[in-house]
């Protein structure tokens, strides 16, 4: 998985997709997850790094992350590896 290369992400977590004109605001953790994906981390690495940093149980994290990735996918921000 990776973030579509034409997606612009600002420091404030504002995302802009220039091919559709859609824009979104991610909260700080959302932005952190997007940044981790953009840096080339795999799903398990993202889970590991967030889990190390925040007080969250593994199940909740995995469930919330799956929801978040689904939202990114349907909004054409995240694409699956081919």
């Amino acid at each position, binding site marked *: 998985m990776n973030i579509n290369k*034409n997606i*612009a992400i600002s420091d404030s977590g504002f995302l*802009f997709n*220039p*091919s*559709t*004109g859609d824009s979104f605001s991610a909260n700080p953790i959302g932005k952190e997850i997007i940044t981790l994906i953009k840096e080339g981390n795999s799903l398990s690495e993202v889970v590991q790094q967030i889990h190390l940093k925040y007080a969250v149980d593994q199940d909740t994290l995995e469930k919330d992350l799956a929801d978040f990735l689904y939202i990114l996918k349907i909004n054409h921000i995240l694409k699956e590896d081919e």
Partner: protein
Amino acid sequence: MNRRKITVAVTGLNNIDSPGPGIPVIRALKESSSFDVRIIGLSYESLEPGLYMHDLVDKSYAIPLPSAGSQALFKRLQYINSVENVDVIIPNFDAELHNFILLAAPLKQQLNIATFLPNREVFDSRHKSELPEFGKKYKINVPKSDMILSIKDFKKIEEDYTYPLVVKGKFYDASIAYNQEQAISYFHKIAAKWGLPIIIQEYVTGTEVNVTALGDGEGRCIGAVAMRKLYITDKGKAWSGITLDDPELISISRKVVENSRWRGGCELEFIKDEKDQYYLLEMNPRFPAWVYLAVGCGQNHPEALVRMALGEEVSPYETYDQGKMFIRYSYDLIVHMSEFEKISTLGEL
């Protein structure tokens, strides 16, 4: 830098909730790097706001409605030209273009006024009622559509469509009908307002995206900017929009402009469906009211049109800024009654 002084007459000064392109075209020309433009406003009604925008419009004249015919228009332009010495006219209404195309040669030969319009054949080929043929000719997806003159005609073609379908006027207006009753009601409403024929069109779902473009009439597309509406009024007009980075959409638009040898400004309206296929819904034969967004992102189409109308060589624009937005607003002009009286009684302001 020395800018050449020219006089350009512009129509479409109705800067209301369904705005005409006149004022955005004028703003574009006022920002020209090549020309110092004196603007002559041409109006059909005394309440067109552009008439009273003296910082943009230097002098205004009322002109006869398109239904008065081309000769009445020519006579009026003859008079206006005798006072103003007009270099170029940019008409901005669909309904008036027929007359201006008819007058293009006499205006140039007798009054030395340049226009930059498509010829009659090309103009007619992109008409809403001709869209299926246009799509076939230029290999562009278009929704299925039929032209009808009566309810009887509608009933004959009704079973070729599924609901919802779109009922469209020949120049303006479109409504989505979810059943036969609604379709018949919209037929009567739109026919009463804009006349016949009415166009019945397949309803394609997806995201509406628009392109403002300029062709040189020789098969070159001089500029094209893609925009998605972000805020739409109940009349379907964009109150806010954003430029897109969509190479495929720009490529399709260029193909339409180049292959049809379109001469002048135009607006291409597309729907991008769920499978990312583009369907051309309409090709409007003049600049859209949001054409100033093109200027804001690096392509001054009205200026390029004037340069071509005056016989200058123009290089095509290749890029524009993506992610630039326009946000429209309304503004109350305070006008003295004497101004309204002047344009209403003398036809000049």
